[in-house]
């Protein structure tokens, strides 16, 4: 039981939860979105700045549980500075991990601290928490790109 819990609440997650990276809304940004987990009411405002096809910045303001907060922190670490294409691939890899019901082996080279979320996949009720920031990021990035194409 404690082992099961420990697989969910890995040290990395608790560290990011207590000291989230990139938190706080910043300028400049190309798009801002507000996402809600309607199940529980967790809310997230997230900004993305895309410059020349690169995720120049991600910043956010989140109210939520350890998993959703830590996920926002890890996600920002992973995507900032990447090309949108690379970042989308990381997003895809993370999504596959989350939907794998604990059967997918995480790839540390791609996911870095994100591998700590492997245990979340075994808690279906918490998968949404881990995905909230990623979904918001994807949405915001799409909008930022749309705008930059106008």
């Amino acid at each position, binding site marked *: 039981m404690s082992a099961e819990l420990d697989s969910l609440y890995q040290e990395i997650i608790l560290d990011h939860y207590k000291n989230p990276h990139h938190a706080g809304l910043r300028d400049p940004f190309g798009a801002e979105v507000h996402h809600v987990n*309607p199940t529980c009411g967790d*809310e997230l405002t997230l900004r993305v700045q895309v410059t020349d096809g690169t995720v120049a910045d991600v910043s956010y303001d989140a109210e939520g549980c350890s998993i959703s907060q830590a996920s926002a922190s890890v996600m920002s670490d992973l995507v900032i500075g990447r090309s949108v294409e690379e970042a989308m691939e990381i997003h895809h890899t993370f999504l596959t991990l989350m939907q794998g019901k604990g059967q997918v082996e995480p790839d540390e080279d791609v996911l870095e601290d994100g591998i700590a979320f492997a245990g979340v996949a075994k808690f279906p*009720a918490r998968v949404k928490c881990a995905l909230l920031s990623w979904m918001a990021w994807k949405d915001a990035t799409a909008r930022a790109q749309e705008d930059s194409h106008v």
Partner: protein
Amino acid sequence: MIEGLLPELDVIRKDFPILERTLADGRPLVYLDSANTSQKPQVVIDTMVDHLERHNANISRAMHLLGAESTEAFENGRDRVASFIGAPSREEVIFTKNASEALNLVANTLAWKGPHQLGEGDEVVITEMEHHSNIVPWQLVTERTGATLRWFGLTDEGELDLSDIDDLLTERTKVVALTWVSNMLGTINPIAEITRRAHQVGALVVVDASQAVPQLPVDLQSFDEESRPDFLAFTGHKVVGPTGVGVLWGRREALESLPPFLGGGEMIETVRMESSTYAPIPHRFEAGTPPIVEVVGLGAAVDYLDHVGMEAIHRHEQAITGYALEGLAGVPGLTVLGPLDPTRRGGAVSFELAGVHPHDVATVLDTRGLAVRAGHHCARPAHARFGVQSSVRMSSYLYTTPAEIDALVEGLHFTRDYFKVS
């Protein structure tokens, strides 16, 4: 031997516990009322029981193990239904309480602000062969918005009279709502062709597939875009599933263009006292606790049908219907309402028996263990069109045997004798 029957009919019949029931005098039950509601195979009942005894919890909102299991079972039902009808996306499958609610959902929301809001000068086109559930919602919304209700008439053979289609479908037409298979006449309508024509004038097309989905292999993805309806409704209890659940499939953009229907838990994103925002489809149209165990049962039901195979079920229905039409033709004074070619109709066969009121026919048959329906089958206008007030209807399904049709024909001869009709 009749061609097209399901090869393992005996085995299939064993799946349906109610078919083992014997009635008074030890007569076996002969259930010929499947267009009204279908019987349920053991696997559907067992799946529901297992859910209630081991996994019952509310969905989405619940954070615990049972909640996760229940949510997964429920959403798996959505996957199963989506694949059963070949829906382009699982999110386009909305669960309602029955087909009637699904049809009302569309009609009702078109009264409110949105890109398709109805108003004076707009027209809604239905047909004279609709079930009341695809007539009354359109009467209500047209009365309430000032729009006009128009309809296709029927030919003497019981088919849609399309001769005035150019007059009916105009740029004023905002919605065309029609049944795929008639529950009274058995007629199969040319859905793709009418949809294409309706789309040319920019109308939304709502198809009542309550009798089609149980009988025909339905694959929405096989339609090309212009001829694919915008909405399709059917009901769980006619596809060997439980009562309490229906389905509205809608093209994503069409669904997204509708304002909210019922408001409440599950369909929201954020609620403030001043105003709320709404969840994306499908949840946007699923207010409150959904029919959880019913969706779980419906998933098992369409799995069962898939397992037997919809092509095979369709052939079986055609074979039984052909055999029934032949048998009925041998009963003096019997007139079938609707098309007589079994390859071009569904499995509901309505008829009159000269000299005996449909009620009395049904009662006599009932005392012989034969369950048929008497009345207007919720299609009073179609009855009025043929100048009759009511009729007797027999309707078969995958478990119906030729012997049961023989029993019906015999019962009708007996009925004539009993009432001394000459």
